[in-house]
């Protein structure tokens, strides 16, 4: 395709918090400057900037891309804000990738930010505005409804129980104990998850990621620059994204086809023919416990309905054959929406470089994958990384 090879060369992030003292701009600056510092670059070296941030309603600031732009290092530079809801955090690095792959820019800074605490007492009021304004909002839906409906459909299709799915919360919250930025890391049991209050059956409180503030950033560079900067560039070898019907009541929620199509696009580009054998570490999007399983299936890392068994068998533990969410994921580290997807790409970057410290998965992984999901619930974004 005549595309240039692109590497991730630096990463940074803030702590993920229920409520941060810092403004969104200050959080963005903290993550962005840390990412630049991590690869010994300054803003002068940056040719273009990508800003990822979810609905304006959370921060309550209209044109949030513009609002955050100074903290993202975007002034006097070409800048764009892309937005696909929860999928944004992995979509923004994809945008950064094509800025560099196309030959337009040599170095791009990608910043993801969310400050959900500004919408108070709870951002559910802002989530209401994503539902269809004619036929759904009059029913006064809560965002969790739609996930509960999907989780129920998924459980029904495969004969799964809440217990099967609770294992994901237990694993991810425990993994997060080793993440210095984690908001809701805990050592809990399956019983704790099952006994936590039911919000919308079958979703209990400990099946849900928290509301968070935070930011995360990456530095991407073209091959000739990356090789000069570091002997450990992490290559973005495949990207994919896909949107399914927004008539979500017209499609079968038990399987995320949009994730499969996004994954197939990324796999084709990365030359991956047997994902389960060729991918060593995965960060699928896990805003709800069942979503990790749902997404592993969409990513073709196991058959439909088989992800729960992989989890029960310990395959997805950090020391398992296919470590899944070694960071602790959204369930453990937290979910500042666009920042959490960038965090997942950063985690794969650190894992492949062997820099994940206590979170490091064994066996020197060489290929990793990060995925996010969003819009109302029908967009999939996938990045395949290699060292």
């Amino acid at each position: 395709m005549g595309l240039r090879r692109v590497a991730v060369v630096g990463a940074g992030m803030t702590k993920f918090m229920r409520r941060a003292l810092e403004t969104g701009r200050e959080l963005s600056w903290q993550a962005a400057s840390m990412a630049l510092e991590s690869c010994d670059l300054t803003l002068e070296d940056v040719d273009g900037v990508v800003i990822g941030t979810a609905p304006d309603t959370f921060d309550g600031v209209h044109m949030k891309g513009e609002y955050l732009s100074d903290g993202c290092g975007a002034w006097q530079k070409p800048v764009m804000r892309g937005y696909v809801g929860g999928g944004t955090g992995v979509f923004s690095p994809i945008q950064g990738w094509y800025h560099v792959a196309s030959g337009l820019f040599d170095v791009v800074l990608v910043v993801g930010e969310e400050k959900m605490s500004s919408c108070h007492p709870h951002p559910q009021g802002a989530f209401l505005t994503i539902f269809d304004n004619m036929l759904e909002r009059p029913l006064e839906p809560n965002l969790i409804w739609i996930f509960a409906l999907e989780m129920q459909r998924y459980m029904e299709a495969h004969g799964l129980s809440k217990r099967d799915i609770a294992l994901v919360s237990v694993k991810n919250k425990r993994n997060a104990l080793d993440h210095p930025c984690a908001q809701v890391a805990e050592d809990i049991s399956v019983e704790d998850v099952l006994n936590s209050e039911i919000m919308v059956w079958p979703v209990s409180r400990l099946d849900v990621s928290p509301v968070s503030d935070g930011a995360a950033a990456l530095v991407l560079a073209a091959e000739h620059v990356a090789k000069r900067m570091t002997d450990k560039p992490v290559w973005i070898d495949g990207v994919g994204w896909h949107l399914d019907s927004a008539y979500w009541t017209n499609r079968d929620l038990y399987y995320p086809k949009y994730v499969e199509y996004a994954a197939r696009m990324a796999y084709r580009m990365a030359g991956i023919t047997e994902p389960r054998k060729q991918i060593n570490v995965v960060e699928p999007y896990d805003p709800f416990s069942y979503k990790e399983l749902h997404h592993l299936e969409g990513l073709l890392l196991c058959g439909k309905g088989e992800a729960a068994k992989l989890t029960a068998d310990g395959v997805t533990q950090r020391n398992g054959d296919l470590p899944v969410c070694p960071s602790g994921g959204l369930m453990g580290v937290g979910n500042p929406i666009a920042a959490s997807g960038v965090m997942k790409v950063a985690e794969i970057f650190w894992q492949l470089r062997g820099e994940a410290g206590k979170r490091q998965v064994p066996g020197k992984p060489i290929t990793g994958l990060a995925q996010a999901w969003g819009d109302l619930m029908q967009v999939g974004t996938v990045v395949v990384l290699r060292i």
Partner: protein
Amino acid sequence: MTTDREFPGTPLSDSDISEGKVLIVEHDPNARYAWDAGIAIGRFLAELKKGRIVGRECHRCRRIMVPPRMFCEQCFRPTDRWVVLKDSGRVNTYSISYIRWDASRVKEPTIPAVIEIDGASKGMGIMHFLGEVKPEDVQVGMRVKAVWKPPRQREGSILDIRYFRPY
């Protein structure tokens, strides 16, 4: 590098706020909207007022779609005709909600569901509530029928259907 260094960010506690340790600027935007229902949903809502659920058919892909639309998003051409559907269907999936839209708790749970409407193509559903059924008795695949508001109380809204009940 990830574990050896301090990560930035300053978490606040509830008491930092309640005791006024940090300063806050508040704003309530009070933005109000009135959406024109459009051609497809306008007709759909007008039919609800008459006590009927209608869909649109595309003659190319042969789907009968609900909610109705004036263009087929798959064939990318105009849809062809209105079809009167039944006011009954099958539960595709359901949930049991203990919270309102703003996350506050309710005493009596509601049962949001996706209901595949009889007469539409397979898998074509709408979101609504189930009623006259205990949460523990609801099952995927269950047959349900609309319970309408009395004609005089209908106003051309999805709420003209109060809920769907087993039948």
